[in-house]
């Protein structure tokens, strides 16, 4: 819907390439547009399209966009967190840390581009459902994340980086609080073998950063093949056939 933001840009802009490719008369030689190749490779049904070379100046432009759309090593890092997890949540903002249990189901989506994680737990005694999206933007060269849940109406966006091995991801952000102030946040995710830990920091009462929360995730299931992408595909097929209640598949789980 409204959020066709990227879709709009990427589509309209990226559109140049394939369309040019279609009208191109000769397959281009290896040009700097080569990064476009992997992008085309994600289209399973299509034979490799020709490189755009019809309009001068368009190649670099398009190559950039196409390359920016190709998942790379950082998207592989995200895969480490796909699957199902049990979570132990420790809240540190109380004088006495409080513990609760939660589960997390995480899928790679859009052909290995984004990690979509559905969280189910409790927050101050209330059932809590939340969804986290984590990606790596090839253009800005930053990790980008979004969080939203059933306890608030605001989305939270953060950006960050990882260490060389992709085992530690550090994100920072700033959000408007209902008290009218900006609140800084920082989180550090450390990925181990069959588990990962997320530590969450914020501004403490004295204005200094303090640890607010720690979540330890332990793997219970490997990621399903195809995962949510396949489920959504199936849903779309059912809808075309007029199957009732097919859209339930789109809900967080």
């Amino acid at each position, binding site marked *: *819907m*409204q*959020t*066709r933001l990227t*879709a*709009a*840009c990427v589509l309209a*802009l990226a*559109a*140049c390439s394939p369309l040019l490719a*279609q009208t191109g008369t000769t397959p281009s030689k290896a040009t700097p547009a080569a990064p476009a190749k992997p*992008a085309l490779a*994600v*289209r399973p*049904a*299509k034979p490799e399209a020709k490189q755009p070379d019809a309009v001068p100046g368009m190649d670099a432009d398009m190559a950039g966009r196409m390359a920016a*759309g190709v998942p790379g090593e950082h998207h592989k890092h995200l895969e480490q967190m796909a699957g199902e997890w049990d979570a132990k949540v420790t809240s540190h*903002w109380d*004088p*006495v840390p409080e513990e609760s249990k939660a589960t997390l189901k995480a899928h790679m*989506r*859009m052909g290995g*581009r984004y990690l979509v994680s559905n*969280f189910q737990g409790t927050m101050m005694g209330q059932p809590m*459902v939340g969804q986290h999206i984590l*990606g790596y*933007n090839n*253009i*800005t060269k930053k990790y980008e994340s*979004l969080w*939203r849940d*059933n*306890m*608030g*109406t605001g*989305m*939270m966006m953060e950006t960050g980086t990882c260490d060389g091995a992709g085992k530690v991801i550090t*994100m920072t952000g700033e959000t*408007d*609080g*209902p*008290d009218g102030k900006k*609140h800084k946040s920082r*989180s550090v*995710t450390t990925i181990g073998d069959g588990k990962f830990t*997320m530590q*969450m920091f*914020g501004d403490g*009462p004295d204005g200094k950063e303090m640890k607010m*929360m720690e*979540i330890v995730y332990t793997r219970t299931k490997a990621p399903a093949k195809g995962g949510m992408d396949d489920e*959504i595909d199936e849903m*779309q097929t059912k809808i075309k056939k*007029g199957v*009732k*209640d*097919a*859209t339930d598949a*789109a*809900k967080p789980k």
Partner: protein
Amino acid sequence: MNRYRVSALGAIVLALSAGAAALTAAQPGDNKAEPGDMPAMTPDMAAMMKLFEDAGKPGVQHELLKQFAGTFDAKVSMWMPGVEAPSVSTGTMVNTLNHGGRYLHHEYKGEFDGADFTGSGDWGFNNTAKRWEGTWMDSMSTAVSFNTGTLDGKRGEWTMKGEWDHPLGYRARQRDVIRMAGPDAHSMTSYTTDKDGIEQKVMEIAYTRRPDAAAGKSASGTR
């Protein structure tokens, strides 16, 4: 990663109040709290909790999201630079209300140049920032998009704005206009402003509700 974002924010603000409470508690003459006791809720904390609760409740704006719930056929027109006629493709958009009616979740499947194209996003209203917020991700990009906007209630028209980094090193601006055209149809028109400050219409999507499928169901199937 940061699975606890918003509540984390809650935590932060509560910590602030808790700190205030601790200071109060530390004043001479106060009874010492036993370890393990929940700190007594001070008026400040209670007020803060109330703020959070109110900010977290779906309101009139979230009611408006319901009209978009359902399954829609999409007709997508895209304009390329220098080409007058749009390229047209079709797709299906499934919109469901999620997270207790706070967000409208989009699942789009269509095509691009004859190949599969999938996209997904969310749309909601932030009670605190008093703005509409939208996200988007798709199978042709690696960006997690976030944009914000307003509603012109008289016109039944939303305007969502965002910025994104162009591979050629500039910040492009995006404007999406969503128009209601009755209970079963709406459209979205997208404009992009390039590095020279020139805005162009790049895409228009016409959505029409599918009469079959689970159209009415999704509105009630909130979670």
